[in-house]
């Protein structure tokens, strides 16, 4: 089987020639690359999905508080919000779920890097929000939900091939930006079953996060990461809405990813996970850094 691709155009051509659907082809490719059968690949997708659902439940069960104090139960607050100002349940669930999973990550819980730890709430938050709001019969064992993960993975794989999924190499556009592109594409695929629509939604989403800096306070994966998981889940839903209305990205996905790579290369190293610029260098950021270097003397637990 030919498994090599480095663009969405190449991937979609391979899939079209093969005859299977995009997610079926991705599962077969993974089986080929890792020497297991397709059922084992699907079992592993299910296992990873279940881990994200467990993290989600944990994020809501009790307010998540990190050693630094920078993460402080935002998901629990969102969960308790009685009258959300935007009255759409898919929207509200997606924002809260994304934060819940990412808070568990920030507090040392078990998660799936999706595609990274700092962006780990966005794709599973969107998928579980869709499931809870639109298709309540889906579980981690449902091929349809697994297919959505495979579509998200295909989008992420193209970004990794043409650019990067590392904040240190490409800034936050490569982490939360990439995650939102993956999530919007996965939902567009659930909504339409059309791989072109998945990559169109991904292109729309990614364009709107180009240039996003990675400037974490004290170098910790907390500020702005945790709340950004909610913002970028929202970004993905805007892209989904535009795609559903038939709005096409003027710049195709592969070109958007190349632009992301070019922007990442132009960005100062101070804005790429080094905690030497942006929010990290604000007075608040510097105080948090000093507290960390002193070993968090004010922390209630270690």
């Amino acid at each position, binding site marked *: 089987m030919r498994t090599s691709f480095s663009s969405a155009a190449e991937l979609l051509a391979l899939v079209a020639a093969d005859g299977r659907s995009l997610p079926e082809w991705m599962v077969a490719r993974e089986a080929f690359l890792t020497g297991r059968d397709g059922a084992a690949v699907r079992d*592993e997708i299910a296992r990873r999905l279940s881990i994200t659902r467990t993290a989600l439940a944990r994020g809501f069960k009790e307010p998540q508080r990190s050693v630094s104090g920078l993460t402080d139960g935002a998901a629990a607050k969102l969960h308790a919000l009685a009258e959300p100002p935007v009255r759409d349940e898919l929207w509200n669930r997606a924002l809260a779920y994304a934060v819940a999973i990412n808070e568990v990550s920030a507090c040392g819980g078990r998660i799936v890097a999706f595609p990274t730890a700092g962006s780990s709430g966005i794709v599973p938050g969107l998928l579980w929000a869709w499931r809870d709001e639109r298709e309540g019969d889906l579980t981690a064992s449902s091929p349809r939900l697994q297919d959505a993960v495979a579509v998200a993975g295909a989008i992420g794989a193209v970004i990794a091939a043409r650019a990067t999924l590392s904040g240190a190499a490409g800034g936050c556009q490569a982490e939360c930006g990439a995650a939102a592109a993956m999530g919007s594409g996965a939902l567009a695929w659930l909504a339409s079953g059309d791989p072109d629509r998945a990559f169109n939604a991904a292109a729309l989403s990614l364009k709107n996060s180009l240039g996003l800096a990675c400037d974490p306070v004290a170098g910790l994966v907390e500020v702005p990461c945790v709340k950004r998981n909610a913002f970028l889940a929202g970004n993905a839903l805007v892209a989904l809405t535009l795609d559903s209305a038939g709005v096409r990205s003027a710049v195709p996905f592969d070109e958007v990813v190349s632009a992301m790579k070019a922007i990442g290369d132009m960005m100062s190293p101070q804005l790429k996970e080094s905690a030497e610029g942006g929010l990290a260098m604000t007075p608040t950021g510097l105080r948090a850094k000093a507290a960390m270097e002193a070993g968090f003397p004010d922390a209630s637990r270690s």
Partner: protein
Amino acid sequence: MSAPALFDVIGPVMIGPSSSHTAGVARICFLARKAFGERPEKARVAFHGSLAATWRGHGSDKAALAGLLGLHPEDERLSFARELADREGLVVDFVEVRESDPGLHPNTLRVELEGGGRKLSITGSSIGGGAVRVENVNGFPASISGELDAVLVRHRDRPGVIAGVTGILAAAGVNIATAASRRNQKGDEALLVVEVDGVPPGAALEAIKALGEVLAAVHLPSVVS
């Protein structure tokens, strides 16, 4: 570059908060423990560069302890690694090396283990998204990702040793994915690293150990479940 595998994008399964500062550190220390083969009597972990600045906030020390205890990087007991290390009597000296070394990746750690009259030093980098690269083993340059199972063979630099090792693996039906051998100087010691598909049988490892010029051989399990 060609697109990576699905589970490289959707993964790894890990304990937060940081794929490079937590998961990567856990993986490198897990590989160090497996390469050493037993609980070390003395251990020192030096965090370089970005890790030196942020290891406290990321729980990189817990991740390192978990790895040195032999806990798989996905194991949730990582959160209690300090308590587990206390119970097992594992004491690790953590050191910060703030000066940046242009020859090293910004997220690099050096692990030194001692015990039973043996010493092991491993330098590894956490290169993003939880992926790692062990770059040096006891002074020998290497490039081990931990994605695949591997066999490390320390041997004298003599004709036929590599053929002996690959012959044993071939006879056991083990496919070699990568192989690299480095020596300090001609005729001296050398390190052979063979990454394989699947898990090499214990009998094959014993046969490799029994080869004439082989000083030691160890199986490094994959860090991916």
